């Protein structure tokens, strides 16, 4: 460090004393308004700290006199948005599902709302794309256990399936043929082979033991040709969609223990509007009837 009081000849201002290869740094005074700008920011900061949440305390923080919070702001904007959409929402609540579907504006609003509600309430079982999983149906396809019309979907969402707490829930019970010793293991094996032939996965003609067992034990719900019956939520055994899997072991297991999947009823938890929106959304996934 050289003497910091050294004055630069050309500019007449002080130098900082820093020198690199003979070049010295000038210590030009800042303009005074710059200082004032700094003071203004300090005053601003004080005002801000009073008005808005600012200072962290041992638990929580100061709230500010304006009572602002980003969570509150979000709630306000959601309320404002809902108020802006109140006409649409009232119309959806009042209209039939068919009318909603026919009106492009109502349909697109209901579909978007349904998608949002689906992401919150349904994805845990049905998956984020409604693609389903073992035991939880894929809602994109055209296979419906209890019906794929708007009304049937609405009914299912409202009251659930085999959901005991809801009096209007739709229910059925497949017997556990093996566990309850209604059929011998050998019989279940033969039956399974026949069931698999219904969907073209095995060859077995209709005069076989398996066919007879099917006629006696299964056809009352699943139909003579295994086409299923939606009144009982009995799945079609003749199509390519298998909720629990199409391999032999899984089907044996299904016959042995039976399958009685449960879906909760939502009418207790969601309002009419949301359920309608959900029905519209699920119906619009590509398999709606």
């Amino acid at each position, binding site marked *: 460090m050289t003497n910091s009081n050294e004055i630069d000849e050309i500019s007449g201002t002080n130098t900082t004393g820093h020198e690199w290869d003979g070049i010295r740094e000038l210590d030009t005074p800042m303009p005074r308004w710059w200082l004032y700008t700094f003071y203004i920011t300090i005053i601003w900061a004080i005002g801000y700290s009073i008005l808005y949440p600012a200072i962290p305390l041992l638990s929580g923080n100061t709230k500010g006199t304006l009572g602002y919070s980003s969570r509150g702001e979000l709630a306000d904007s959601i309320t404002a948005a809902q108020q802006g959409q109140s006409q649409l929402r009232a119309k959806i609540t009042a209209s039939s599902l068919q009318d909603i579907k026919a009106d492009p504006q109502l349909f697109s609003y209901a579909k978007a709302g349904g998608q949002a509600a689906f992401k919150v309430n349904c994805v845990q079982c049905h998956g984020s794309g409604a693609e389903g999983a073992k035991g939880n149906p894929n809602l994109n396809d055209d296979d419906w256990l209890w019906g794929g019309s708007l009304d049937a979907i609405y009914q299912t969402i409202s009251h659930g399936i085999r959901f005991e707490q809801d009096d209007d829930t739709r229910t059925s019970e497949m017997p556990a043929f093996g566990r309850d010793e209604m059929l011998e293991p050998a019989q279940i094996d033969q039956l399974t082979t026949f069931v698999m032939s219904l969907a073209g996965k095995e060859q077995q003609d209709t005069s076989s033991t398996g066919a007879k067992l099917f006629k006696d034990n299964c056809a009352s719900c699943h139909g003579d040709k295994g086409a299923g019956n939606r009144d009982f939520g009995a799945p079609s055994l003749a199509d390519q969609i298998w909720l629990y899997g199409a391999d032999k072991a899984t089907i044996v297991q299904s016959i042995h223990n039976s399958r009685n999947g449960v879906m909760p009823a939502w009418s207790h938890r969601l309002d009419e509007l949301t359920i309608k929106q959900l029905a519209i959304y699920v119906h*619009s996934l*590509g*398999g709606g009837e």
Partner: protein
Amino acid sequence: MSEQSFIEKFEVTAVNKDGSQKLFQAPKKIYPKRVEGTFRQLKWVIMTLTLAVYYITPWLRWDRGPFAPDQAVLVDIANRRFYFFFIEIWPQEFFYVAGLLIMAGIGLFLVTSVWGRVWCGYACPQTVWVDLFLLVERFVEGDRNQRIKLDESKWSFSKLKKKFLKHSAWLFIALLTGGAWIFYFADAPTLARDFFTFNAPLVAYTTVLILTTTTYLFGGFMKEQVCTYMCPWPRIQAAMLDENSLVVTYNDYRGEPRTAHQKQALASGEPVGDCIDCNKCVVVCPMGIDIRDGQQLECITCALCIDACDGVMDKIKKPRGLISYATLFEYDKAMAGEPVEQSVPILFRPRTLVYSAIWALAGLSMLFVLATRSRLDVNVLHDRNPLAVQLKDGSVRNGYTVKILNMEPKQHKALLKFDGLANAKMRLEGMKGQVFTAGDLVSLDLEPDQLHVLKVYITIGQSHLPNSDQDFYFHAEILKSKEQHKTNTKFHLKK
């Protein structure tokens, strides 16, 4: 031994002992004097032009038919469109604006390397508005000496009246400036009506308020402080200038030694330069500097000192150009006593050629893209979750969202098809019961200047399923203009 010897004496100097060391500096008020001359004329012309362009542009009309606004220049943020006369830009075409900014930047480099800081001196809004504010100030309070006197005088009714008048006029101009800005973002006549009936959106009033304040502060009070301390351009331009760039130069080889008493000096046989040290060049300078000290950061090369000095040279019957636009190269030559031709900027040197090339490349490629751009676009979004859906009969279905962009403000009939996928069937949401196979044309009505969204399902039967995922495409064509667009996508077999 005195008591004092028990007390230790420290070797220290108080930090504020050095009186010359000031941390902050109050600005000195500058009173630029009125001046006549070529460059002053030029500045009036440019000021009128730039202000006219700024204030009038939003009011120009341009007919685009019933489906688009008729404002020639409009940044329609709410509807995400930008209109510039015959050009309409959608948000995804914003690269045109990026291109324009590149051209503006490179153009500024080019102009600076040839003509120095002409942007600062003539066209910069800060310069233009400060000039306008000074004009008002001079009109109300008089020229330099009167203004100095007025500021020094005690407060009186006439001083108060003058100050009030000046600030009202400044505020009025500032309000007009801030006010004009918002008209670029909405239909000007409608917004003007709404603005004065207090029906305009809040953002319009806040924008006007902020811009009015900044214009008033920057134009009336900050003035040269903005250029010297706030603007980065004076710093950057130091790297842009070279020995062939025109800068305002005091030709000291001709002017020095300066003296205010030429006759005395001549009589006593001393050497005498052309500069009579009248300080006219200093008093006219809006930056308040002395150009005779050489090139300075503060100099915006407005050339008013040239006008001032030329006037003085005319009066004392000496040749003009004691202060002139000159390059460092010319100055050095003249310094060495070599003949100098009239200052002509050297246009063609590697630096300017490179700048021009980049500038032209950006401009031409944008022109090319603009001239050949399609006003029809098709985006295909494959459903991602699930990618594929197996149906009851074993067939596989894929879902797509097809977005057709009709970027013209005209109603159009268009045909959509998919092709390149054998044995596939297409269904569209909202068109119940209609099934299309590859190559079949779906007739669509495209709304003007709108996005047309279709939900499309494509299904391939179990017996026809390909062995692997298949590439295919959607194709749209506008019936009338034959404009078409093809977008490739994929058919997936598994979810």
